[in-house]
């Protein structure tokens, strides 16, 4: 019977091409607008590393003197000082962790053939690659020994490898960052996730870094940050060494905690660490607290998806509802015009349910067509978004889940539009129309 209803729906669409086109077009516009904003929202808010996001944590320390306020909801600073980052990394606790910060260099090969180019880079420790599961094309991450003793090593991304080494295996070759030579130990795939969730402080949707060098290079080369630096007390900084021992907050830190027990133990460790630092006179506090958020909690805490995005999605759904209201009107006109035919069908034995289903199937056919056309409209909308700013290049796209969601939302919208007209027409009293036809 379903196929019969689909056949009847198709005939109905063919017999009323203008009104059918208007309905398909209305729903396509509604779906197109909705899917444009929803796709961007989806890409912004989706779990970037679903199998591991609950295990990767970002620690925050309350290391300000009493009476100082931080511009966060829980009064916890969202970065660490250099000394805290180093101390946490070197602590005698059996977890994978890595401090990091964003910087940049003039990258070249010290030959006149290749033009130098400014590239963002990140100082990390070797565990960073393991925590965030960076896939290597050539080589591997540097060793702990190299990190500690021969730190002039680098991991580059495919993009840099293609540009400077024509995509060949560059492991063992030298690359120059500013005036220093670094030995390439590994080539990773480009960071393909649209959210740079390991560093939301410096723009979660900014271009990811393409060069990684050991965190231990920072004091050797006095590497400055390309990211935010904040402080809670006035300190005279006369040089890089002062920065490293200051309370300026400018590094990020990630730790992999596989179990709840590990998380609890690490929390206890953070409390003990703060009490120890307080005892050493770094700051004066009565009570201590810490934050230990996983990836998704961290993204939410930092409002990676802003309220504006949510409002935009809500508005686009409201626009879809306006389209639905228009379709409802058109469907009412179309279905009620067909009441005499429905009267005949009812007289010939059709139940209300069968009449209702016939019309719901017709609505679904319109909704499905609108949904498919809506995907095309959404692609146009996303293209428009991408042209406004390269920032949106990775965000303004539709993944498979959104491609499937479009017809599903369209079907739901068309159901909403079609329920009342279908219900009204299925209640047709056959006797009214049989004589009058």
């Amino acid at each position, binding site marked *: *019977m379903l196929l*019969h209803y689909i056949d*009847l729906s198709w*005939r*109905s669409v063919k*017999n009323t091409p203008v009104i059918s086109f208007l309905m398909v077009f209305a729903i396509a516009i509604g779906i197109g607008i909705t899917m444009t904003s929803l796709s961007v929202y989806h890409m912004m808010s989706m779990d970037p590393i679903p199998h591991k996001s609950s295990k990767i944590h970002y620690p925050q320390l309350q290391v300000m003197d009493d009476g100082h306020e931080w511009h966060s909801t829980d009064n916890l600073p969202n970065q660490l000082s250099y000394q805290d980052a180093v101390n946490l990394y070197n602590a005698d606790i059996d977890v994978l962790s890595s401090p990091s910060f964003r910087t940049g260099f003039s990258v070249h090969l010290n030959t006149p053939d290749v033009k130098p180019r400014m590239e963002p880079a990140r100082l990390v420790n070797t565990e960073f690659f393991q925590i965030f599961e960076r896939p290597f094309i050539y080589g591997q991450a540097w060793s702990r020994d190299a990190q500690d003793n021969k730190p002039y090593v680098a991991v580059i991304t495919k993009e840099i490898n293609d540009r400077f080494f024509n995509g060949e295996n560059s492991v063992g070759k030298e690359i120059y960052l500013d005036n220093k030579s670094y030995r390439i130990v590994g080539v990773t795939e480009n960071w393909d996730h649209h959210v740079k969730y390991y560093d939301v402080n410096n723009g979660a949707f900014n271009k990811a870094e393409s060069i990684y060098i050991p965190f231990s290079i920072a004091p050797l080369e006095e590497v400055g940050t390309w990211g935010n630096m904040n402080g809670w007390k006035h300190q005279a900084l006369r040089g890089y060494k002062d920065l490293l021992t200051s309370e300026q907050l400018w590094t990020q830190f990630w730790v992999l905690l596989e179990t709840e027990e590990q998380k609890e133990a690490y929390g206890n460790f953070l409390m003990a660490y703060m009490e120890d630092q307080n005892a050493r006179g770094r700051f004066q506090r009565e009570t201590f607290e810490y934050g230990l958020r996983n990836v998704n909690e961290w993204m939410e805490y930092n409002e990676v998806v802003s309220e504006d995005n949510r409002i935009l999605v809500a508005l686009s759904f409201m626009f879809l509802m306006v389209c639905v209201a228009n379709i409802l009107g058109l469907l009412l006109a179309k279905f009620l015009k067909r009441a*005499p*035919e429905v*009267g*005949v*069908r*009812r*007289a*010939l*034995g*059709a*139940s*209300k*349910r*069968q009449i209702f289903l016939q019309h719901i199937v017709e609505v679904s056919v319109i909704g499905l067509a609108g949904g498919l056309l809506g995907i095309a409209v959404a692609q146009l909308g996303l293209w428009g978004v991408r042209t406004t700013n390269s920032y949106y290049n990775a965000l303004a796209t539709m993944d498979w889940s959104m491609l499937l969601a479009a017809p599903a939302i369209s079907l739901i919208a068309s159901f909403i539009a079609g329920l009342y007209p279908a219900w009204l027409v299925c209640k047709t*009293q*056959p*006797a009214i129309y*049989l*004589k009058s*036809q």
Partner: protein
Amino acid sequence: MLKMQNISKVYRTDSVQTHALRDFSLEVNEGEFIAVTGPSGSGKTTFLNMAGLLEPFTSGQYTLDGIDVGGLSDNQRADLRNQKIGFIFQGFNLIPDLNIFENVEVPLRYRGVSAKDRKRRIDECLEQVGLASRAKHLPQQLSGGQQQRVAIARALAGNPRFLLADEPTGNLDTLMARQVMELLEEINRNGATIVMVTHDPELARRAPRNIQVVDGQLADFTLYQGKPESGVASSNTPLKTAEV
């Protein structure tokens, strides 16, 4: 086959109450062919709608083929219509988007008949009304008489035991009307019970039994003991009136 006892139908609006049928009682036996006549607005069509379960009645009792239809739900009434009743309308009421074959197929689809059985039955019915060669035509491509024959084929498709015809020849010329009437008589001879509403006294006389509805009540009826020998009943055949 059909037994109505004290059936009343009242249409109400905020200020007006119209009695379409009042204490209407009638018994129709299996295999009968009844013509229902009466002036316009007398309640003939309302009676037909009640008989065909197209409208609920306000009070009274109605038994169709032994089933008390008073307590049936809307869906049960639809099922009963589909199983036992065939309709023939003055305006044919064919669905214009469907071809002849598909129009005849409609009641069979709602009955859930398999595609193979549907085809066999539709071919039989179209053969019976002489339109087998027009199966792929759309209704608007046929004459009025042909369309009414399609409507008859559709009514017959489900093998109904009870056929209700509302002015089946009202839109047809004399020749077409005669053909349709002959078809109905043949169907009746094959065992179907037929109740036909008509304004045409000549057609009414061809039915073995006549009833007249006036002001929503059964005013009188004529019972012919046998069918007329000729195609059209004599116009001076005496009417027999009786209280019901």
